[in-house]
């Protein structure tokens, strides 16, 4: 019996012209999303490579390691091109001196406001919009449509248990819609391979999980639609209701929840931090000026030793300033981070009233472009800075650039040191958190999506048991 109903559902869905049109368009959009993601990756990759090359080129001819001006960039990652998350919003370029606080500047949207005007077309967005609409379009009249058609009466003139019927209905609709969706998804993955996007095993795992989360998300809207159609008598009203629900779930709730909840929590303003730091800096500098004015080398015979002594002195001063600055900065940052964490918790949980927010957050976590990206990138940059400092220290005998001064010996041309080889500088690489970790952070959202599914499923089930089939 169940099989028969599923079979009928499959045949009825796939045989309809509605299916042909909307499936065709969904398929097209999904493939488009993959293509756009892949191309976008290639373009940003090219930009990234060009920036790296330019960065190296400008170091050519430098003869002193202390003169090196090192920049690191957030490397574009293939999965991040598919689910952009906040990757386009945060700063990408970090200037590394070997010491001092790092800030990432130059977000993509700031640099290319064109993309900020219309936003990106990524897989996350396409899934959010297309999968949910596709589900609604097919299931909005699952129950009340059959009633309007008159087939529900005829069906229940037979010995059909309601539970079997509704189970068959849901399973059949899900299969009829989700299985065909796998085709464009697979084509999309194939496209990634064909376009030569370098994806490793972990990336495929992420992609598979994102697609899985997408299907769960699709399931939420499917069961929700069946539920609504089991609560209403006319398919026109269930459609209206569902579209309004869709509008709220996909476009309104996530945005307004974050804005409303986010503003309700006070966070230490970033300008405040910047100003406090800059003030302390000015004050320290003022003090140091006096100390510096009193600097006298212990001996003046050996220029080399004297210079070293001076450099050491400047380094020590810089180190001291740096420590004081860091103490202040850490305190303020900690304060800000606490506020931010609280705000995130409120805002995101409120947003998760909508399954779209859950899906999107899960996808971002899996792609490594969630809110954590900013901190993770800075952490990676800080770790790099230590390596870089060690490297430069080794090259220059403990000297770093940010001591405030570069003291160069102006001698004859005879003892000109050879130019440095910038390729020796350790390379920066950013890796998103490994797959198990990403999967673990997205677990809450995937679980939530599953709960949404269960809830709507149960709702549809109970709703239909009570449905008036006349």
């Amino acid at each position, binding site marked *: 019996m169940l099989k028969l109903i599923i079979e009928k559902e499959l045949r009825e869905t796939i045989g309809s012209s509605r299916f042909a049109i909307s499936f065709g368009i969904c398929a097209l959009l999904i493939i488009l999303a993959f293509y756009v993601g892949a191309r976008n990756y290639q373009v940003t990759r090219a930009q990234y490579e060009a920036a790296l090359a330019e960065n190296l080129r400008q170091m050519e001819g430098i003869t002193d390691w202390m003169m090196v001006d090192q920049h690191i960039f957030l490397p574009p990652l293939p999965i991040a091109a598919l689910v952009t998350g906040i990757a386009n919003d945060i700063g990408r370029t970090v200037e590394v001196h070997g010491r001092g606080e790092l800030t990432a500047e130059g977000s993509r949207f700031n640099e*290319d406001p064109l993309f900020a005007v219309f936003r990106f077309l990524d897989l996350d967005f396409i899934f959010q919009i297309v999968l949910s609409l596709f589900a609604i379009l097919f299931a909005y009249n699952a129950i009340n449509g059959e009633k309007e058609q008159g087939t529900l009466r005829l069906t229940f003139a037979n010995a059909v248990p309601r539970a079997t019927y509704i189970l068959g209905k849901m399973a059949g609709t899900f299969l009829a819609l989700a299985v065909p969706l796998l085709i464009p998804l697979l084509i999309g993955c194939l496209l990634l391979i064909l376009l030569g996007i370098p994806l490793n095993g972990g990336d495929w795992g992420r992609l598979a999980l994102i697609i899985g989360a997408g299907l769960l998300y699709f399931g939420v809207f499917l069961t929700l639609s069946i539920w609504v159609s089991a609560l209403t008598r006319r398919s026109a009203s269930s459609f209206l209701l569902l579209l309004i629900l869709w509008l709220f779930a996909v476009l309104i709730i996530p945005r307004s929840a974050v804005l409303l909840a986010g503003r309700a929590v006070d966070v230490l303003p970033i300008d405040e931090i910047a100003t406090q730091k800059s003030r302390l800096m000015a004050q320290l500098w003022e003090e140091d000026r006096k100390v510096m004015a009193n600097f006298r080398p212990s001996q003046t015979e050996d220029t080399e030793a004297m210079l070293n002594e001076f450099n050491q002195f400047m380094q020590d001063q810089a180190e001291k300033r740096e420590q004081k600055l860091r103490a202040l900065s850490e305190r303020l940052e900690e304060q800000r981070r606490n506020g931010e964490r609280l705000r995130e918790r409120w805002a995101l949980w409120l947003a998760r009233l909508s399954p779209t927010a859950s899906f999107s957050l899960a996808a971002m976590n899996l792609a490594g472009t969630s809110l954590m990206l900013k901190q993770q990138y800075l952490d990676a940059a800080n770790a790099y800075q230590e390596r870089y400092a060690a490297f430069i220290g080794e090259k220059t005998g403990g000297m770093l650039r940010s001591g405030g001064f570069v003291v160069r010996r*102006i001698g004859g041309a005879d003892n000109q040191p050879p130019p440095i080889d910038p390729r020796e500088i350790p390379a920066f690489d950013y890796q998103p958190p490994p797959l198990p970790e990403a999967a673990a952070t997205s677990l809450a959202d995937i679980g939530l999506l599953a709960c949404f599914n269960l809830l709507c499923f149960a709702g549809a089930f109970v709703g239909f048991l009570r449905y008036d089939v006349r």
Partner: protein
Amino acid sequence: MLSLLIQKELKSIIASPKFVGTFGTCAVLILLSVFIGIQEYRASMTQYETARQLNDQEMAESSSWSALHTRVYRQPDPMQIFVSGVHYDIGRFSAISEWEEIKLRRSNYSEDPIFAIFRFIDFSFVVQIALSLLAILFTYDAINGEREQGTLKLTFANPVPRVRYILGKLIGSWLGMVIPLLIPILLALLLVLLYRIPLTADHWLRIFLLIGFSLLFFTFFLALGLLVSARTRSSSVAFLLLLVGWVTLVLIIPRAGAMLAGQLVPVPGIAEIDSKLAGYSQERWDQHSEAMSQRYQERNAVTAGMSAEEREAYEDANMWAWLEEEDAERKKLQQDISEYGRKLQEDFRNRRAIQEQLAFILARFSPASAYQLAAMQLAGNDIDLKTRYEDAMQAYRTIFNDFLDMKRKESGGHSGMRISISSESGINISTGGVDAQSLDLSEVPRFTPPDYLLSRSLGRVMPDLVLLVLFTVLAFAGAFVGFLRYDVR
């Protein structure tokens, strides 16, 4: 006859549960969006004021003219309540000093990515996404629904000219949908007044124009619904088609247009440009220090034969002159670098302008983009906001630096640091004549935000206006012709 038809249309719209549902949703969304907009505006205003105050304090604490530097913040504009545009995406401020190039830094989104994660909701977003969807929800069955109901046949069993009927339908549904929309819009404006948002006459004019554009955009979707409804037999097919059309027009084409243009016209990344500039400046500084070392050697040659006292006296006598000279050279150098940077920028901007133009042309295949671009122009939050600010800041930087120069000359002191190292006298750090008194900052020129005249916005929105009108007229005409041929059975 026509008024009878219009009346019937109005009555049937207003009495339908669909109307209650959609109208309620619209009203809630419009009010919500404006409320959020007000909150956000106030938040950014507070942020702006605090930032400026802190900057002023910091300047006040500065003890010498030559160390004086400032930051200029982008000023929030009340129009962002309705259209946020790129306001939250582009940098908030730029440092103004001799040694830093103008660059808008730190967008709101990069500082608080939490707000970037699901993006913004504002009035123009609600109009673009929600109202358009609700408009097609309203008209998708305007004609074929009446056929399915059987009322179309009954109507045309009477001596009703088709032209009248379709006109009545158009006018009736327009009145029935647009007039009620004005209620939440007026309430939203009331909300703005209630919160005492400082609006000038110019702002009000922009707001009314924005509302006009919104209604025009809404009308387009009403007409589109009628068009499809008059060309299809069954209302479910009409809806399917309209929904597909809506997704394509509102969600896909604008983005796809931008992405396509981005790929057709590649523009180098800023990081690359910055690196180029950094490379150039490195090179110039190297040359400079090379020249300096030459000069030192020459000077040393002069004093070579002198005794220590003589040398000291000579150096003391000439030191400030030398410093002046070096200063002038440094200035020249910095100007050169700035010039080079400007050239690079110019190049970059030109390339990007082509990309943007192409993107906008492609995107404007959808009235949703035309509306969005027009709304941004009217609100002054358009894509050129960044350039406008950067240009104004550039101009201000020159004024500011000139002022500092003048002040430095007046005060006569020199606050630079001089470190002299020689094998005889060792290392000497002199911190110059410190003018440690507090500075009178009242004369420091103030930055005036770039103004964006309404007349200029108007000029810029013209193409979009023409496009929107054209789209709407075409859709109406299509609906009209379609209905004249419609099989009413």
